[in-house]
């Protein structure tokens, strides 16, 4: 606001200079008149728009009425004010020389419009910059959240701790574990950019993950992966099964003292591709609304995006037999 007042005052001074150069009056008087009129116009326009225009996107048209009204009333008020200050009677001029008065009004209108336009475009620019900034921040926050979910820190640091232990005792196994970690990280980071990869690739990444977990859990984790050769080339969304296997470990096997086994199978039933993740863990029980629920929601969302109504995720769980997750997808033609 203050900034705009100063800029308006600067323009008024320029106008006063112009009047002095081309007109008949001395600079002092011109300056007083120009400032009184100009500042009145500015104050009327700027304060009334605060009150009349709350939402720029829908109400900016009100300016069309606001600026000319501000100019006319500002001229009136400003002239009377300057008359009072200088003890002159310029307002007599209005009736004596209507043509000049009109000219003066048109010039004020021009100056008012130009200045308003200038202020507006600056404000517009600032708003756009701010909106862009907010959008950018939201996008990076969402991305960070997704990455944090994928690169579960607890898993990552435990894996690194195991790796650290292996480096001293069993460098060959450490190297193998590191290679798997690298493949897992690379797949996780690029999964959001690919739309599909072959089922063979999907199973290879699951093997990486399960091998990492097997190093950590020792004999408490056993697993089998069953992918028939004729299905190996079929395209699937990358790391679609990952959250299901992760849930089986985190909520099924990790809480169980004796551990258990996980099996992942792919098979064709008619025109459908069925992918199955089952474990012998504790069953989802009451924790399904927690992080397990987040993983499941993610799988459902990705299925809906890729296949619409033609894919489904079914869950069966009980404390004796563990959890079975079955994905049914249309068989790619």
């Amino acid at each position: 606001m203050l900034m705009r007042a100063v800029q308006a005052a600067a323009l008024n001074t320029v106008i006063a200079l112009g009047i002095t150069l081309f007109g008949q009056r001395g600079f002092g008087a011109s300056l007083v008149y120009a400032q009184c009129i100009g500042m009145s116009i500015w104050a009327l326009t700027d304060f009334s728009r605060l009150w009349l225009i709350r939402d720029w996107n829908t109400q900016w048209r009100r300016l069309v009425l606001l600026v000319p009204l501000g100019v006319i009333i500002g001229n009136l008020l400003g002239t009377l004010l300057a008359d009072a200050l200088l003890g002159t009677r310029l307002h007599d001029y209005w009736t004596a020389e209507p043509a000049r008065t009109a000219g003066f009004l048109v010039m004020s209108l021009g100056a008012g419009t130009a200045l308003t336009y200038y202020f507006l475009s600056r404000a517009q620019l600032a708003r756009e910059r701010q909106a862009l900034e907010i959008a950018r921040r939201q996008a990076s926050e969402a991305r960070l959240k997704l990455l944090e979910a994928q690169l579960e820190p607890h898993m990552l640091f435990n894996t690194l701790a195991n790796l650290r232990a292996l480096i001293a005792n069993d460098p060959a196994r450490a190297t193998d574990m590191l290679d798997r970690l690298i493949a897992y990280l690379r797949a996780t980071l690029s999964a959001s950019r690919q739309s599909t990869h072959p089922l063979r690739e999907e199973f290879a990444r699951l093997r990486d993950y399960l091998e990492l977990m097997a190093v950590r859990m020792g004999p408490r984790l056993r697993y089998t992966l069953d992918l028939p050769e004729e299905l190996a080339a079929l395209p699937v969304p990358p790391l679609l099964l990952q959250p299901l296997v992760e849930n089986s470990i985190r909520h099924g096997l990790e809480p169980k003292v004796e551990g258990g086994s996980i099996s992942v199978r792919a098979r064709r039933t008619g025109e459908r591709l069925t992918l199955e993740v089952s474990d012998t863990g504790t069953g989802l029980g009451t924790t399904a609304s927690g992080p397990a629920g987040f993983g499941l929601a993610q799988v459902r969302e990705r299925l809906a995006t890729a296949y619409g109504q033609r894919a489904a995720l079914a869950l069966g769980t009980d404390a004796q037999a563990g959890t079975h997750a079955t994905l049914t997808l249309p068989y790619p033609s």
Partner: protein
Amino acid sequence: MSLATPTALIAEDEPLLAQALQTELARAWPALKVVAVVGDGHSAVQQALQLQPDVLFFDVRMPGLSGLDAATRLADEWSGERPFPALAFVTAYDQYAVQAFEAQAVDYLLKPVEPARLQKTVARMQQTLQAAPSFDATLAQLRGLLRAHAAPAAAPLQFIQASAGNTIRMVPVDEVLYFEAADKYVRVITPGHEYLIRTPLKELLPQLDGQAFWQVHRGTVVRASAIEQVTRDEAGKTWLSLRAHPERLAVSRLYAHLFKPM
């Protein structure tokens, strides 16, 4: 057992990490003798009670019982003869747990365990063993951790819905004398009846008015106004007798501080 050969118990479910910690400890504290390495919370409690080690390293996430639950259960069942062991938690990444450890000044290690950090922990533990800190201070720390760990308070429950065959009984919470965990159920005791519900005590607790209902044991939550008398027996154990019920309730050590004369 003299302090010349202090003993340790390690509870860590990942075999390589348990072994690595043992190796690092041998370097940082050569005199320390690791008497047991266990992979789950229940074994941790049982072995610690049996072997009475001087120091404990408890992983936070373990099958069976979490490190925190194991530590509180151990404190509850610890016989008063030997000082309670110096305790350090071990965690890979648990932001909230770490905050709580900091707040309660409880020692903890982050995985992978750095030798320099372990050296500090060892120095602190050696100090603790010499100073023999009060058990009450340890209990207060554990209570603080439990509080930080508890689920946020939910809207207070008005009725307990208990199934009895094909019907569901609506038991007003105001009538309940106490709740007691029993295997897979929770017993709900009113002056005239007893009901069984499946909701675990841990989930029930945040839905109860904390002013009216006091937890007095890991498996018992009692209506404070139903307590008539509090007695201590010769063994130092605290018991509650109720106004409207003959059963006596045991108060565990962790919650005995609730019952002090004004």
